[in-house]
């Protein structure tokens, strides 16, 4: 079922060791060895964990009602009073899925980077960061307590920051990395508060006792820090938060979800993700598409017992997820940077995952996470291949007709596009990966809506509209990039302006060229995943065997049966028949509009964009989020900082503190000097006066004693 312990240890720890070797000893071992060490390590970890996933999913039947979990304790980390946290590797269905996704995509990205980064002077550093990220992400998904998860959470944040700013001589990359880091701080603050709240309520940060307490609805086996009434149970207990009595699970759930919002770029905290595209494209594929940004989804699914009994928190998740899915899709339509289109697409797909989790279909969310990792990594790596072939041109308006130069890349991008728009025939097994997972989400959302889950109906409709838009912007990308005539060939001259490589000079006369084999192999392998991942794993993740597969790793309350309800009436579900066809219809509709606008009437899209109109401006400017944040938070913070600096620090703290005290000292010193006249009779007077004072004091004391 699972691998033996040493191999699991290898999967989790080896990338960290490889990162340390490549990072710390790069001067001694050189680029090539560093690349070899990291790529081979992560690649073999990927093969092992993929094998583990297959073995787990198909190798045996698990008890649906018994929680399958295997924890390897490595060391005690924190042991203070009631506060325990171990270094541990938790192996269950959740972490097996995540390990497979992380290490396999990471391994392919490592390989791909051999080609993509071949002209970069800092290869060892890059590969070291990549492996460090892989290690941190594995620590995140295998933690058996919230503290280790937090460690991994911050670790991937660090790796993300380092990799976005990898080309540190570019101002835009530096700003983007800082933006990502700061935005994530907001989310992480929520996460940290959530962990504290969890500790406050359950007296532990370890997952098992905490989640068991919720499942059994009793505080008997945990020792809450806060004192509850005698009969209080986790599901109905509430604590005072900001003056309101808040149900504990709602509070913990919302706070933790705020952390997830930051990491997974959900509405309000999504602003960093498009800018994160300043990083090298393999990074975008690995971190900002396939793995790190899904950590929030993973966290929500992992803590499903909390959200099952926190209807408001779940509704909030569903609402935010649905809004993000739609919002990002609208913005994605109007972007011209090939990577930004895919970035907003990522954002949108993450929205799908969240509203799935929000309506209680955690399995569907995890399934979409799983398939999305393959096709989104494929799209990014394909885009990277185009960018590489076009000499670091990213603007789709300057592309066109690339298909004839890059046939394999084109094929791979087509597969990725078909996968993301979720093409497939309902009620059959014919479809690409995205078909299985996205339709599962949309179906469960509708079923949940029927059952009255809050925001599920909204999520369904938003999901449908977003599916239309997804299809539109995905095909738009394909047409603008690969079809039609090549844009004016002047691109080569100014392409170097925003080009990360100083020593980048191709001898191809500006003609696009197909990428080297080392970059194509990952595309081909990911294409396989993008085609078949849904087909192979549908039954296990959300189909008839889902209870055996998840084996307790995801918890559903007895009244939550969206996964059963998602079938049509004939198959024991509650959904009407049209729900199954709606996604396909809108997908084809989107395809037709895109084809009409960008293939047959090439230039129409440009004319629409030029004509402007408020709607296009709104989309193209990402709904002015950056501007609004700039005007409120950034400037507000600056004003506040100015106030604290000039008034708080300089006037009050310095004024009464250092400056005031030293002024007082100087004043006292000058008074003392002035008193020191040098006249004997003054001195004598002081002496006799002192004697009088002393006498008075002692007399008072004596009188008091009597």
């Amino acid at each position: 079922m699972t691998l033996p312990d040493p191999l699991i240890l290898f999967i989790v720890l080896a990338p960290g060791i490889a990162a340390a070797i490549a990072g710390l000893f790069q001067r001694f071992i050189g680029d090539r060895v560093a690349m070899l060490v990291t790529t081979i390590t992560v690649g073999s970890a990927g093969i092992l964990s993929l094998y583990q996933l297959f073995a787990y999913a198909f190798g045996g039947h698990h008890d649906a009602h018994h929680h399958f979990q295997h924890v390897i304790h490595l060391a005690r980390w924190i042991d203070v009073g009631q506060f325990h946290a171990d270094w541990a590797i938790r192996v269950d269905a959740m972490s097996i899925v995540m390990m497979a996704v992380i290490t396999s995509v990471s391994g392919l990205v490592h390989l791909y980077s051999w080609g993509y980064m071949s002209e970069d002077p800092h290869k060892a550093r890059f590969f070291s960061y990549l492996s460090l990220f892989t290690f941190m992400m594995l620590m995140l998904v295998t933690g058996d307590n919230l503290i280790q998860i937090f460690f991994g959470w911050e670790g991937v944040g660090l790796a993300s920051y380092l990799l976005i700013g990898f080309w540190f001589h570019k101002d835009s990359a530096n700003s983007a990395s800082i933006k990502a880091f700061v935005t994530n701080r907001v989310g992480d603050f929520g996460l940290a508060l959530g962990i504290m709240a969890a500790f406050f309520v359950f007296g532990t940060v370890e997952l098992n006792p905490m989640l068991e307490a919720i499942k059994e609805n009793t505080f008997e086996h945990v020792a809450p820090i806060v004192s509850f009434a005698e009969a209080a149970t986790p599901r109905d207990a509430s604590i005072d938060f900001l003056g309101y009595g808040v149900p504990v699970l709602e509070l913990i759930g919302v706070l933790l979800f705020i952390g997830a919002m930051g990491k997974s770029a959900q509405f309000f905290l999504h602003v960093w993700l498009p800018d994160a595209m300043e990083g090298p494209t393999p990074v975008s594929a690995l971190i900002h598409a396939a793995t790190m940004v899904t950590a929030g989804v993973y966290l929500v699914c992992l803590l499903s017992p909390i959200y099952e009994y926190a209807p408001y928190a779940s509704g909030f998740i569903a609402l935010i997820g649905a809004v993000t899915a739609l919002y990002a899709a609208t913005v994605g339509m109007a972007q011209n940077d090939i990577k930004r289109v895919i970035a907003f697409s990522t954002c949108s797909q993450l929205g799908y995952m969240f509203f799935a989790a929000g309506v209680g279909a955690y399995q569907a969310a995890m399934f979409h996470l799983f398939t999305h990792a393959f096709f989104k990594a494929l799209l990014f790596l394909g885009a990277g291949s185009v960018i590489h072939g076009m000499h670091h041109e990213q603007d789709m308006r300057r592309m066109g007709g690339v298909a004839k130069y890059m046939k394999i890349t084109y094929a791979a991008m087509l597969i990725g596009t078909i996968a993301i728009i979720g093409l497939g025939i309902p009620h059959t097994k014919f479809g690409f990966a995205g078909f299985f997972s996205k339709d599962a989400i949309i179906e469960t959302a509708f079923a949940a809506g029927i059952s009255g889950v809050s925001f599920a109906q909204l999520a369904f409709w938003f999901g449908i509209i977003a599916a239309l838009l997804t299809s539109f912007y995905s095909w738009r990308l394909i047409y603008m990039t690969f079809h039609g005539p090549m844009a004016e060939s002047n691109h080569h001259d100014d392409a170097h302006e925003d080009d990360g490589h100083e020593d980048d000079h191709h001898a191809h006369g500006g003609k696009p060229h197909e990428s080297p084999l080392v970059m194509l192999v990952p595309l081909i392998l990911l294409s396989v995943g993008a085609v078949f991942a849904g087909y192979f794993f549908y039954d296990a993740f959300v189909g008839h065997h889902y209870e055996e597969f998840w084996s307790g790793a995801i918890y559903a309350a007895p009244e939550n049966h969206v996964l059963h309800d998602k079938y049509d009436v004939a198959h024991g579900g509650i959904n009407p028949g049209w729900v199954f066809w709606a996604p396909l219809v809108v997908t084809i509709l989107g395809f037709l509009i895109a084809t009409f606008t960008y293939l047959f009437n090439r230039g129409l899209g440009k004319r629409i964009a030029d004509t402007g109109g408020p709607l296009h401006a709104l989309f193209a400017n990402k709904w002015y989020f950056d501007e609004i944040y700039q005007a409120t938070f950034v400037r507000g913070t600056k004003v506040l900082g100015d106030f604290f600096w000039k008034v708080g620090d300089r006037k009050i703290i310095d004024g009464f503190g250092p400056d005031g005290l030293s002024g007082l000292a100087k004043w006292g010193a000058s008074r003392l000097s002035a008193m020191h006249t040098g006249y004997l009779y003054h001195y004598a007077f002081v002496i006799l006066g002192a004697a009088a004072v002393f006498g008075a004091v002692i007399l008072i004391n004596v009188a008091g004693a009597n």
Partner: protein
Amino acid sequence: MNWDEIFAAATPELYLAFAGLIAVVLGAVLRERFATVSIKAGALILLGACALSLFNIEGGVAFNGLWETDRFTNLAKAVCYFCAGVALLIAEPYLVKERLIRYEYALLVIFASLGMGITLSANDLMTLYLGIETLSLSSYVLAAFNRDSQRSSEAGLKYFVLGALASGLILYGSSLVYGFSGSTNYDAIAQAEFGIGLVFGLVLLITGLAFKVSAAPLHVWTPDVYEGAPTPVVAFFASAPKLASMVVFATILFEAFGNAIDQWQDVILIISGASMLIGAFGALRQTNLKRLFAYSSIGNMGYALIALAAGEDIGGPALLVYMVIYALSQLGIFGVLLSMRRRGGMVEDISELSGLSSTMPWLAVCMTALVFSVAGIPPLGGFFGKLVVFQAGVEAGLWPIVIIGVIASVVSLGYYLRIIMIMWGGDKLAPFENMSGTVGITVSAATILAFPVFTVVIGWMMSLAGGSFSLG
């Protein structure tokens, strides 16, 4: 008269008196020829007295209870004699260059030291007064030793007039105490009922003794005398007599008035707090190094008085430790001041230290270590001195004064760091003239003693002084 008793209790003082008288005769006979020899001879005599004090450390009672020594007093005496001897040695080059070399100088230091010995051994107000006057009269003359200098004469005169006033207060206080307790003996006074008459006597005694240790607000003479008196004389004043006076202050309050601690503790706290604050703030604007260290010494007396206020059991050993560290580091600092000589004479302004780190690095290192030590920066000796004093204060529950002490320490860092900043950061000036061997050795030795090696010695001293200071 029981000579065994007397020898057991008073050997060092008898020896000092005898040697001093011989030196007087020698001086009268040899005159100028004895001048330079007298310094070294005097230093030897004082170091001999130091050795005798240590040799005879158990002490005893003599002269029908007028005289009592024990390990505590003998230890204090040994350090006093040692400091006096060293102060005498480092004076020689200065006296030679300033053409002040007279055999009387050594004699005055010897007799001043004899005065210290007598006050430390006193178990009776009469003995105490005798010792104080022996010390004071010698000191007045020493302060005015450079009688051709207006400043030195003025310093001597001021010191004399105010000192006489203080002595008068002590004498008047003693007579009141005698009148109301019927005895001048410490032990007998301790038995007497603490009535209103004794209050006045005690107040006058405290006032006079606080003057002698230059604690605020009776410190007024100190800056003027420090500035005006010749530097080696100040080096002497700053070390041995301070130590002796403080220990005597403690002895009389603990032995004679130990039962009335609740009554006098507040007064000591007032003196202590005022001294620390005036020492800290007063020095901030001083540019003359001698004046600056005058304020520094006022502040340091304030810290020592915390230990005094803490009472005999808790504060006694802390007081001795603090004062010993203080006295030794003062010798080092004044050694540096003594080596501040350029062509044309001594310089005393703080700006003259500018750039010392590049012209005379070792001197700058020593001065830095010593100043840090006095300021109480770990791991230097002065830090441990302050630590034991503050500990004593905390143990006695005297929180407010300890807090004032900490604040004063911080403020006083302001001027200590200024010295260091000028030495290490200022513009380079011409180097000082080569310092003489004895001064260099003294400065170096004091610096080394300021380092943590010294904590071992502190521990030993604590244990040595700890057991011997109990009310009979």
